[in-house]
C-alpha cells in the first residue's frame, strides 16, 4: 500500500491533487519544467524535481523521466491528473511494470476507450446506445447508404471518412435530396482530403453534452455521482459546467436511467477508479454514448459540491485497494453547482491567449464559493501550457441562487497582469437563454457574442470616460513629478532602509 505519491502534472490540478494527498497524510512529490520552478505545485509539495525544458514534450510528457524520478524519490504511486500522460495506456502500463501504483484505470480500459471504434463497439455490445450511423461499417456505395438512411432516420449527416472541420459534411432532411448531397459531399471530400468516402450519422438536434461521473473499486462496485451539463463550449473547449443538468433537472427517472447506462458502459471495459461517460442528448430525451474520459475531469468540482464526495481522495483510496466509501443509494444531488473556467485569454481580441506576470489577485470568497487555482501574485503565465489559470465554482440551494452567486463572484474577481475571459462569463450569466437553461452545444459559437450581449446592458460610458480622464491626468502629473524628484536627488539608493533592500 503506497504512502508517497508523485503528481505527474502541473497547474491547478496538480495543486488539487496535492491537497487531497496532504489531507490523507501522504507524502508528495512534484515534478516541474523550466518555466515552472516557482509554480504553486512546486511550492506545495514535500519534494520537487526538475524534469526538463519548458515544452511539454521535453518535460511533462516524458513518462520515462517521471517514472525514474518516482523511483529515485521513493514514491510508490503516480497520479497523472488530466491531460499530458493521463490517457496514455503505455504510460499506465510502464508505471505498473516499474512497481508503481497508477492512480487511475487499468491500461486495458484506457486503451479500449481511447480507440473510438473499439469503444463504440464495446459499449454497443453492452447495450449502451451510440449515435446511430454507418461509421463502423467501412466504405459504402451510394446505393448502400441510401438503403441504410431510413433506418438511421432524418435529419442525418453525411460526413467525410477522412475529414473534419465541416469539409465534406452535409445535412440531409429527407431521402429525396440525398443523392445530390451525397454527390456534393464526395466531391468536396475528394478535393479536401483526396478521399471521397463518406458515412452517415444521425443528426442529434439541439444536442446537449451531458456526462456522468463514475467511481469503481477493485471489489467490483461501480456507482455514478449524477450528471454534469457541459454544453457551453467554444472550439470544443468546455467553458462552463454545472451539476445537476438543467436539461435532466427534476426528471429523476431519466437521471437514473442515464446513470445506469453509464455504469454499464464502464463495466463493459472492467473499469476501475474515476472516469466519465459523455453522452449527447436530444430534445426528446434520447441519449447516445459519445466517449469515455478515463481520468479525472477539469469539471469534477461541481460534482463534489452537490454530492459532498471528495473525488480525488476517493481515487486515492480506490488505488490503495479500499472499497468505495459510498453505495449508489448514498448519493444525492444537493443544491446546484456551477463552474466557470477562468482562462488567460482576451475575450475582446478573438480569445487570443494572454501571457505575462500576474501582479495582483483578489479572488472572490464567502459562502458557497470555491476557487481552484494554480497561480498567485508574482507568478508568470507562460505560453507553454494551456490557458486555464483558475476555476471558479459556486454552490447554491437552487440554480437561481447559484447563478446570482456566480454573478457576484465574477464581479468581485480581480486579476491583474494577464487578460482573462471573466467578462465573457459575466455576459453569459446575463443571457436569458443561459438563465432559462435553454442552450445546446452550438449556443456559444452560433448564438452568443460578447458585443451584442453588451448592447442591451446598462452601460456607463460617462463613468469610463471619467476614469480614463483621471488616469491620463494623473499620468501626466506624475511624469512631471518624477522628473522634478530626480533633479533633486541623484542618489536614491541611500534612502532605502536596510529592510527595503532586503525585500527587493
Amino acid at each position, binding site marked *: 500500500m503506497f504512502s508517497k505519491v508523485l503528481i505527474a502534472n502541473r497547474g491547478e490540478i496538480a495543486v488539487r491533487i496535492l491537497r487531497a494527498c496532504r489531507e490523507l497524510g501522504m507524502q508528495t512529490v512534484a515534478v516541474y519544467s523550466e518555466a515552472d520552478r516557482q509554480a504553486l505545485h512546486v511550492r506545495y509539495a514535500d519534494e520537487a524535481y526538475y524534469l526538463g525544458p519548458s515544452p511539454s514534450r521535453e518535460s511533462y510528457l516524458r513518462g520515462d523521466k517521471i517514472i525514474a524520478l518516482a523511483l529515485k524519490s521513493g514514491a510508490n504511486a503516480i497520479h497523472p491528473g488530466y491531460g499530458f500522460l493521463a490517457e496514455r495506456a503505455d504510460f499506465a502500463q510502464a508505471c505498473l511494470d516499474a512497481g508503481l501504483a497508477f492512480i487511475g484505470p487499468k491500461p486495458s480500459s484506457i486503451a479500449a476507450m481511447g480507440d473510438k471504434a473499439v469503444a463504440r463497439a464495446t459499449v454497443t455490445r453492452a447495450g449502451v446506445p451510440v449515435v446511430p450511423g454507418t461509421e463502423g461499417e467501412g466504405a459504402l456505395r451510394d446505393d448502400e447508404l441510401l438503403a441504410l438512411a431510413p433506418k438511421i432516420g432524418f435529419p442525418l449527416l453525411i460526413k467525410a471518412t477522412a475529414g473534419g472541420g465541416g469539409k465534406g459534411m452535409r445535412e440531409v432532411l429527407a431521402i429525396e435530396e440525398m443523392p445530390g448531397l451525397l454527390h456534393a459531399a464526395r466531391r468536396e471530400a475528394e478535393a479536401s482530403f483526396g478521399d471521397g468516402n463518406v458515412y452517415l450519422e444521425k443528426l442529434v438536434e439541439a444536442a446537449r453534452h451531458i456526462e456522468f461521473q463514475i467511481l469503481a473499486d477493485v471489489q467490483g462496485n461501480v456507482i455514478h455521482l449524477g450528471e454534469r451539463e457541459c454544453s457551453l463550449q467554444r*472550439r470544443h*473547449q468546455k467553458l462552463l459546467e454545472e451539476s445537476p443538468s438543467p436539461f435532466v433537472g427534476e426528471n429523476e427517472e431519466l437521471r437514473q436511467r442515464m446513470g445506469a447506462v453509464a455504469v454499464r458502459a464502464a463495466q463493459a471495459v472492467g473499469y476501475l477508479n474515476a472516469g466519465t461517460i459523455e453522452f449527447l442528448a436530444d430534445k426528446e430525451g434520447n441519449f447516445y454514448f459519445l466517449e469515455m474520459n478515463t481520468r479525472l475531469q477539469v469539471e469534477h468540482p461541481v460534482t463534489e459540491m452537490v454530492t459532498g464526495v471528495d473525488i480525488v481522495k476517493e481515487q486515492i483510496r480506490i488505488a490503495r485497494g479500499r472499497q468505495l466509501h459510498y453505495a449508489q443509494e448514498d448519493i444525492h444531488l444537493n443544491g446546484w453547482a456551477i463552474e466557470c473556467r477562468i482562462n*488567460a*485569454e482576451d475575450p*475582446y*481580441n*478573438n480569445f*487570443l*491567449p*494572454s*501571457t505575462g506576470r500576474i*501582479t*495582483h489577485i483578489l479572488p472572490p470568497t464567502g459562502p458557497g464559493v470555491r476557487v481552484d487555482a494554480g497561480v498567485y501574485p508574482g507568478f508568470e503565465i507562460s*505560453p*507553454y*501550457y*494551456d*490557458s486555464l489559470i483558475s476555476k471558479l465554482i459556486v454552490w447554491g440551494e437552487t440554480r437561481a441562487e447559484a447563478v446570482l452567486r456566480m454573478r457576484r463572484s*465574477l*464581479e468581485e474577481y*480581480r486579476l*491583474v497582469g494577464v487578460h482573462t475571459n*471573466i*467578462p465573457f462569463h*459575466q*455576459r453569459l450569466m446575463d443571457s436569458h437563454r443561459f438563465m432559462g437553461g435553454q442552450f445546446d452545444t452550438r449556443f456559444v459559437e452560433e448564438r452568443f457574442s460578447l458585443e451584442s450581449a*453588451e448592447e442591451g*446592458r446598462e*452601460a*456607463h*460610458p*460617462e*463613468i*469610463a*470616460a*471619467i*476614469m*480614463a*480622464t*483621471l*488616469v*491620463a*491626468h494623473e499620468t501626466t502629473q506624475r511624469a512631471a513629478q518624477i522628473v522634478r524628484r530626480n533633479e533633486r536627488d541623484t542618489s536614491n539608493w541611500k534612502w532605502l532602509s536596510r529592510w527595503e533592500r532586503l525585500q527587493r
Partner: protein
Amino acid sequence: MKYITTIDEREFTIEILEEGRLLLDGEEYAVDFESVDGQPVFSLLLNGRSYEAYVYQGDEGLQVLLHGALYLATVEDEREKRLRAAAGGGVVEKGEFHLKAPMPGLVVAVPVSEGSQVAKGDVLVVLESMKMQNELKAPREGTVARLRVRPGDSVEQKQTLLSVV
C-alpha cells in the same frame, strides 16, 4: 485642466477642478479616485456612488474594463484637440498594417503568400500558443507583403510576421 474624452464616438467634456471636484459636461461632481495597491485597478467614488475598473494603456488609447464591459477611451486636452482639428482631423485610414505576434508561439500555418490579395477577416497566420491554434486575421483588405515567417517557426511576442499594404 479640461479634457475631451471620446468613447464610442461620444464626446465627454471633463474638467478637473481642485479639491476632489470635476465637471462632467458642465455638471459638478464630488470625486474621490484612488489606485488599488498601485495596480491599474482604480476605485472611484462619484457623488457617493462606488465604481471600480481596470484602466490599461492600449495601442489606441485607454481601455476601461468596468462591470465586465470594455470601453475604449481617447483622452485629449484642449490643445491636442485643437491641433488635431487644425491638421484636418480624423485618424489616418490607410497606411501599412504590420501583423505582430500577440504572444510567443509556434507558427503552424501561413495560408497566404507574398502578393496575396486578402479581404478583411481572412486568416493570415495560424499561431499555436497555450495548446490552442489561434487564427490571426486581416483587419482590412490589402496585399500581403514582407512575409517573414513560415510554418514551424517559433516567434516572440510582438515580432512582426507580415504586413498588409
